[in-house]
Each structure stands twice: as C-alpha cells, then as structure tokens.
C-alpha cells in the first residue's frame, strides 16, 4: 500500500524530531519540511534525508497537492493563519502548537471521535502525558477534580513556551476536563534547571467519588502499556497510590532521543502523539479511498 504523503511546518526542535519519527512510519511519508530560517539545522537534516525543504514557509508547501496531512510545529499565532490556508487546500492539519483551532485530541483516548475534522490540536506536552491517566481513572469512577504537575528541564522549554506559560496552564486544565473527563481540572508547570537535565516528570492527582483502588490501578496500568506503544519511555514511577479518595500517579517520560536528547520527554511525547494521530488519519484516508475504488 502506498504511504500517505505528509508535510511539516517548522524546522526547529519539534519539527526536526517529528521528521525523524515520520521517516520510520509504515503509513506516512514525509514529503516536505518548510521553515522560515534558511540556515536552520532542521532544513539541512531534511535535505540530507532526501526530503524536500524550503525556508519559504507555508507558501512553499501549499502547491504540493499530493500532501494530504500537514503537521504544524511553528507557533500558535502563525498556526491561526496556516489553519485557514491548509483547510482551503484540502490538507488535514495536525496542530502541535497551543492555537487550539481544532478539537483537543489524545491518541487512544478520543482520536476516533475526531477523524473527520480538518484540524486536530494536540494540546500540550503536559496534557499528552497526563490526560490519558485521568481518563483511565474516570473510566472506573467519576473524577471530581484532576490536578497535574509537570516538571520539565529548563533546557527543553523553548522561548515560545516561556513567553506563553499561561497557555500551558489554561489549555492543559481545560483539556483535563474536556478530554480527561474530570469535572474540574488544574495544571501546574515547573521548570527545573538542574544539570544534567531532569527527565520530564508528571504527577497526576485525582479526587474520586468511589476509590476502588484495585480497579483504578488496573485501568491506569493498562493505559500506561498502551501509551508505551508510541512513547516507549513512558513509565509509572511507582504503583498508583490510592489514599482515601485521592489517587496519585507519578509518570516519568524519557525521550526516544531522535533529535532531542532523552531528557526532553516533554517534546518527545508531542511528536510521538503527532505520528500516532497522523497514522490514524492515514488509515481513515486509505479506507475511504479503497471504498470509493
């Protein structure tokens, strides 16, 4: 079966890490990477892998009609413009910025419900790391309140994240409710400058109505195994703790080390989620076309 051709907007850390992951995909083929900086290492890496690259931004990408899916790793503001252009061109957008144009999506949790929309948003790294756990707990018993704390190494937090840190807290908190199913959500992010850099760490606290400890642990452990299918470095630090009506789950995310070092699990989980969502979209596109033929 032919692979679905995809494009990447953004030749920075995330775009480049994503490219290296896409090159391993069995159903997606990266056809072009576009950025805005002609000297960026990301564009050079793309060329060295035989992938077309341009510093002319989205304008260079749009004429490639065979590109069906575009991953946008530029920024929230540029994505607002890109989203319109991509939709007009009939290209599906997978948005790795906090622009939140399309619905919030987490692989395995709710991707199946959003395969027919032109634009999908991947929330935040903290969201990708914690929402599935809240969702898994909520499958056993209703979560009245979910609170997550993400600690990331200072080196892995770029200037975009830093200047818009409120977007992380707001977007993550909202998606804990909308996607995770919590009645109320709260998110906290802490940057830690320790050297060598810390691995991404997430703590998920959930207040539940009926603390059925064994079932909660089972549900969380099954979810962790599923996530390991696309993020191999995702693991429970300890057995989930159920203390009264409070559930505490601690997760460490070690990055795959494709382009970014392994401490950048926060970026790895975003690019891995993007590939997982892209592959689902590709399956849908292929199925539709097979049905037409």
């Amino acid at each position, binding site marked *: 079966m032919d692979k679905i051709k995809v494009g990447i907007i953004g030749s920075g850390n995330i775009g480049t890490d994503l490219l290296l992951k896409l090159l391993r995909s069995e159903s997606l083929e990266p056809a072009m990477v576009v950025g805005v900086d002609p000297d960026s290492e990301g564009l050079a890496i793309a060329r060295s892998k035989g992938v077309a690259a341009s510093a002319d931004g989205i304008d260079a990408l749009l004429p490639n009609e065979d590109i069906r899916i575009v991953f946008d790793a530029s920024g929230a503001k540029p994505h607002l413009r890109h989203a319109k252009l991509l939709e007009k061109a009939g290209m599906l957008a997978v948005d790795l910025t906090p622009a939140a144009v399309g619905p919030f999506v987490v692989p395995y949790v709710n991707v199946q419900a959003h395969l027919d929309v032109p634009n999908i948003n991947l929330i935040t790294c903290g969201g990708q790391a914690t929402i599935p756990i809240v969702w898994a707990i909520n499958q056993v018993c209703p979560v009245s309140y979910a609170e997550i704390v993400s600690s990331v190494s200072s080196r892995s937090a770029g200037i975009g994240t830093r200047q818009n840190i409120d977007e*992380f807290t707001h977007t993550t908190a909202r998606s804990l409710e909308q996607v995770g199913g919590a009645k109320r959500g709260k998110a906290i*992010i*802490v940057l830690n*400058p320790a050297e060598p850099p*810390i691995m991404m760490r997430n703590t998920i606290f959930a207040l539940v109505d009926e603390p059925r400890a064994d079932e909660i642990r089972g549900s969380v452990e099954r979810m962790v195994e599923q996530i390991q299918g696309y993020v191999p470095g995702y693991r429970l630090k300890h057995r989930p703790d159920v203390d009264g009506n409070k559930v505490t789950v601690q997760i460490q995310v070690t990055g795959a080390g494709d382009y970014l070092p392994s401490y950048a699990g926060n970026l790895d989980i975003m690019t891995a989620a993007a590939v997982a969502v892209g592959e689902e979209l590709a399956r849908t596109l292929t199925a539709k076309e097979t049905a037409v033929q």
Partner: protein
Amino acid sequence: MKPRIRIVDSTLRDGSHSISHQYTEEQVAAIARGLDQAGVDIIEISHGDGLGGSSIQYGFDRTPDEVKLRAASAVVKHSKIAVLLLPGVGTKEDLKAATEFNIRVARIATHVTEANISEQHIGLAKKMGMEVLCFLMMNHMADIDTMVGQAKLMESYGADAVYVVDSAGALLPNEARDRVAALKAGLRIEVGFHAHNNLGLGVGNSLAAIEAGATLVDGSLRGMGGGAGNAMLEALVAVLQKANYENGVDLYKLMDVGEQIVRPIMTRAQEIDNASLTLGFAGVYSTFLLHTERAAKKYGLDARDILMELGRRKAVGGQEDWIIDVAAEMAEQVGH
C-alpha cells in the same frame, strides 16, 4: 544619611505555610488591620504559593484569596496590599481578578534562572498601574553573575525592584551581602531581600542585605513562614531602629499584633527544628517542610533523609510532588 527601609509583611502569605493555609477571613482582617495601624508599608496577602496556589500539590486554602483580599482591603487604610504570583502556578487571569480589591503591589516570582517566564505577568501588572517587586527564588542555586543577568531581564520587563529571595534559608550573611551588592551595582531599580530562618540567620541576613543597599525587606509576625519561618518582623524592626534605619513602624503596636493576634493562631512553634535546619543545610525550598513531615510519617522515614535527597536532586520551588516520589523510592529501597 541612611536610606529609609520599606517593610513588607508576609504573615498573610508566607506565614500561611505554617498553618497549612488555614487562615479565616476574620483572622486576615484582624492581622491586616493591626499591621496597617503599626505602620507597615506593604502587606502581602495570598496563598503561600501565590494566587492560584490552592491545590492538592501545595494544600487547599481554607479561605479563597479573593475573600481574604476583600476582607483586608476593607480595613487597611494606609498600607499598600500586595499579592504574589508564580508564573506556572498562577496566571494573568488570577492577577486581573485580584485587582478589584485595590491591590497596588504585585510580587512576581520565578526560580533564580527562569526569569523569562515572567515577562507577560510583569507587563500586565505594570499596565494595571501596580508597583512590581520581582523575586529571584532559591537564590543560592545560581552563581552571582547568572543571578544578576536574570535580574536585568526582570528590570527590562518593567520591574520596580528585584529581590534576592533566600527560599531555602541557605545563605550566610556574607553571601546575602555580596548578592545584594551585585544587584545594586548592576541594576537601576531598588533591591530587596527575603529571608528564611532555617540556619538562624533570618534577621542577621536581612541586616547584612540592608547594609549592602537593599531598601525593601520582608518579615513576618512571630516569624511565621515556610520552614523555620521568615525574618521575625518584630525583631527585624527593633534591629533596624537600633541601627538607625528609619522605617516608619511603631514597634510596640507591631509587637502587640504579633503576640495578641498572631500567636494564638499558630498551631506549632515557629522554631528551628531538625527538619527546618536540614532545609537550610541542604538548600531545599522552605515550604517543603510540612509536606515532607507528612510523607516521612506515611512511609516510615526520617524527614531529614528525604530533604537531603531532594537537595541532591536539585529540586526547585513548587516541586512538592517530588517529595512523595523520593519518599516512595526510599521506602521501596528499605522495604517498607
């Protein structure tokens, strides 16, 4: 002539850690009224971890910040009321919501190396006409040049002052002095100092900072605050008066608020116990104290061992969840 020193009271913010954020509306009003009548310049009121800090991670506030701020603003006549905000915990929305209570000072705090997460919050507070006092927390964790560079960023965003914040109570007097002097030399704005008393140096370090040029200094009544507490404000004011630094505070009135209103509220002695001393010795965030004691009890460990390990891992402010992680790991190792 010696400069006038502005006194910032943090009983109703940092002090809230000592009682696990359990202030009532009436207690806030009574303390704020007393501080105002005693002539304190600035009264800081917020959850111990700032606006938006009420959480499982840091402890839920018994009284929401807006209720506390409303109660205080109704009784405070002369002092300015301040709020604290830690970007990553609280947001610009929280700051906007607080301004309906006549808040004239915003304190924006980041870890000593992460100043550039505060640009938008500083900008917003300035736009709303507030005085902005910025905190470089866990100051001992960065070398002086790095720290000054971070302070310059805050100055460029619009800060009116930058504080050396000794969150772990780990600085010695010569270090407090050198850090404040470096900021004085590198900045055009005011410099402040916020002490913790984990090594018994709260008041002494504050005096060293003032001698090096700090003109804003924090303290709290009866020393209430994270870890072994802040510089005890009554003692600090007495020391400043003996050293001939004008500060506008009526010492007797201040002492009365501390003894008659604050002391009955306290649920534990604000002393340098073994765990608090370990905070200063290991360089760990002072507010970890009570959370660590709870984790030590739950997992059958010595709080000091947990704190030493957190120091080795270079935990920063706000990472209370690392306490449970470290405790669980240590318990697994010893087979509890």
